[in-house]
């Protein structure tokens, strides 16, 4: 393998990794505040690509208007899922909420299949993003550069929101302790809803970029990325935004490199994330950047 090809793989890995990171952040935020795997996150991500598809292809609206609209719609969808599937079970045992989350995920998948058909559709990628640039001897799609940049911008915005604003403070308070936060005058339901909204918005950004990178959308497309991004969040240390980014990059670069260096294992690509998860959890049960949580009796 020459250095050029390695570089090509590396850029691919970084761009895939930043996509994973973006989606993993949504998981980590919801987990941080509710201690719950939002199984529907991958499907919210899938819905975002469909919103984009319909906006551009069916209604013929230019992409620079559709994409912001998609973000808003997806955020609303995320809040809707929270209100119907999670809020009624706020005080229920954890296993009920997990099952409800799985139900929500399957409902979204099946509803999409019924409404839009199971046949994969092409994602309307604007040409601005698919242009190829030549860097030395390596030719790279412009998109490959845009993705990490967009992820960086989203991450900076999110960190500002969480660490510098009053809303962010409320989120941090709720993630520590719902009851105490409530006593201190935080509107817990609204804060949780907002967290879902922001997480879903990030999933939508990820969805649009995913759609441009792999321009085929289908009702079940969210399942694998959803699982992998959850794994990325766990590997990094769930509840920790920096950890989600680190986990996303490890997973994205690792996956690309596995295929690049060991082509015979290409078929096992999807298993890589799970193997990595189990190895990491065995040695560091709270993830790379996770804190040790004491068990409550």
């Amino acid at each position, binding site marked *: 393998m020459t250095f050029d090809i390695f570089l090509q793989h590396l850029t691919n890995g970084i761009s895939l990794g930043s996509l994973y990171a973006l989606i993993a952040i949504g998981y980590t935020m919801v987990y941080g505040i509710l201690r719950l795997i939002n199984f529907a996150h991958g499907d919210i991500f899938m819905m975002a690509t469909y919103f984009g598809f319909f906006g551009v292809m069916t209604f013929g609206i230019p992409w620079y208007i559709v994409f912001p609209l998609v973000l808003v719609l997806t955020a609303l969808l995320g809040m809707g899922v929270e209100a119907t599937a999670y809020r009624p079970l706020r005080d229920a045992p954890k296993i009920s909420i997990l099952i409800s989350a799985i139900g929500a995920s399957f409902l979204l998948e099946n509803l999409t299949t019924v409404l839009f058909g199971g046949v994969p559709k092409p994602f309307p990628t604007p040409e601005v993003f698919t242009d190829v640039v030549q860097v030395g001897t390596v030719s790279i799609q412009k998109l490959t550069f845009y993705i990490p940049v967009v992820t960086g911008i989203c991450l900076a915005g999110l960190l500002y929101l969480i660490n510098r604003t009053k809303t962010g403070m409320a989120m941090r308070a709720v993630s520590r302790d719902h009851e105490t936060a409530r006593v201190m005058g935080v509107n817990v339901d609204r804060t949780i809803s907002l967290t879902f909204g922001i997480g879903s918005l990030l999933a939508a950004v990820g969805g649009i970029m995913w759609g441009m990178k792999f321009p085929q959308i289908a009702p079940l497309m969210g399942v694998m990325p959803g699982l992998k991004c959850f794994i990325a969040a766990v590997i990094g240390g769930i509840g920790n935004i920096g950890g989600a980014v680190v986990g996303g990059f490890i997973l994205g670069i690792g996956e690309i490199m596995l295929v690049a260096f060991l082509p015979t294992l290409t078929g096992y690509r999807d298993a890589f994330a799970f193997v990595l*998860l189990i190895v990491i959890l065995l040695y560091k049960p709270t993830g790379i950047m996770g804190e040790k949580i004491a068990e409550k009796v």
Partner: protein
Amino acid sequence: MLKKRILTAVALLVLLLFLIYADHFLDIYVVRILNVCAIYAILGLSMNLVNGFTGLFSLGHAGFMAVGAYTTALLTMPEATKQQIFYMAPLIKPLDTLTLPFPLALVLGGILAAFAGYLIGAPALRLKGDYLAIATLGFGEIIRVIFTNTQSLTNGALGLKGIPAITNLYWSFGTGLVTLVILLSLINSSYGRALKAIREDEIAAESMGINLAKHKSLSFVVGAFFAGIGGGLLGNLLGTIDPKMFTFIFTYNILLIIVLGGMGSFTGTIISAFIFTIANEVLRFLDERIDLGFVAFDGKVGLRAVVFSALLMLVVIFYRHGLMGTNEFSWDGFLKHPWWKKWLPRPKRPLPGGGSNS
């Protein structure tokens, strides 16, 4: 006591007579649905042991079923069929010429699934709650990915065809009965009480001297064993299997069954396995065109799945304890009280898997 035994004997006799009747006189389609009902009941029972009785949220069930289904199928297929379907890569020795009787193959399938469960359980059971859920889900997927890629063992994505259709009503219901008896005696033993203690509160159970690792692995391995048996029966009923069959969606269907029946009730699981399978057939009209004479709806493929997903959410949100909660059928309850009273939800009982560790 004697009265109960007589009642049990009568019930078994009625079941046997019904099976003989069904086998001889009922439509082949109906017989097949009954078979699937019994197999889903076995799968539900095995998953309920792990998820409902021990409170381990495991989602790797489809993987264990796949192990059982492939083992049983490969061991019962005649040599000629194997040579025919393994044209991409020949089957490895000694499987290519080996053909075993069905019961032996079934048990071996269960044992291999249990072994897979042991391998998975040893590391994964150190995890809790969601981590365990995601790790077992991952293991289920890994098994599927491996089966897709091992051409010379599983025929890869092409799957196995021409598996002898040995499973009949006697096999499926008989195995179901054996499963039920074994799991019931496990649950009513001191092991079973330890499992329930772990479900209610892991930390308290540990401080009472229960060996968490040992009991969790026991539950996991037994669950995997019967999942493998269920998979083996299913493979030899359907005649063809391929890796795509054993995705997470299969696990999800079994989960739906145990939630609907009540996590922590074998009776509930059996009832809801029948309801689920039959409803799945009855609701087939949703996927087809509905013509009411004056108005016609075009059915949509997948509408059934939408109905079932919505059902799962509704049950969890509004009817959290399922049909039976943690209650079991008993002759005492059946004779003393109207039987349907047991089906009413009992809001005060805590659901398994709760406890303070959430």
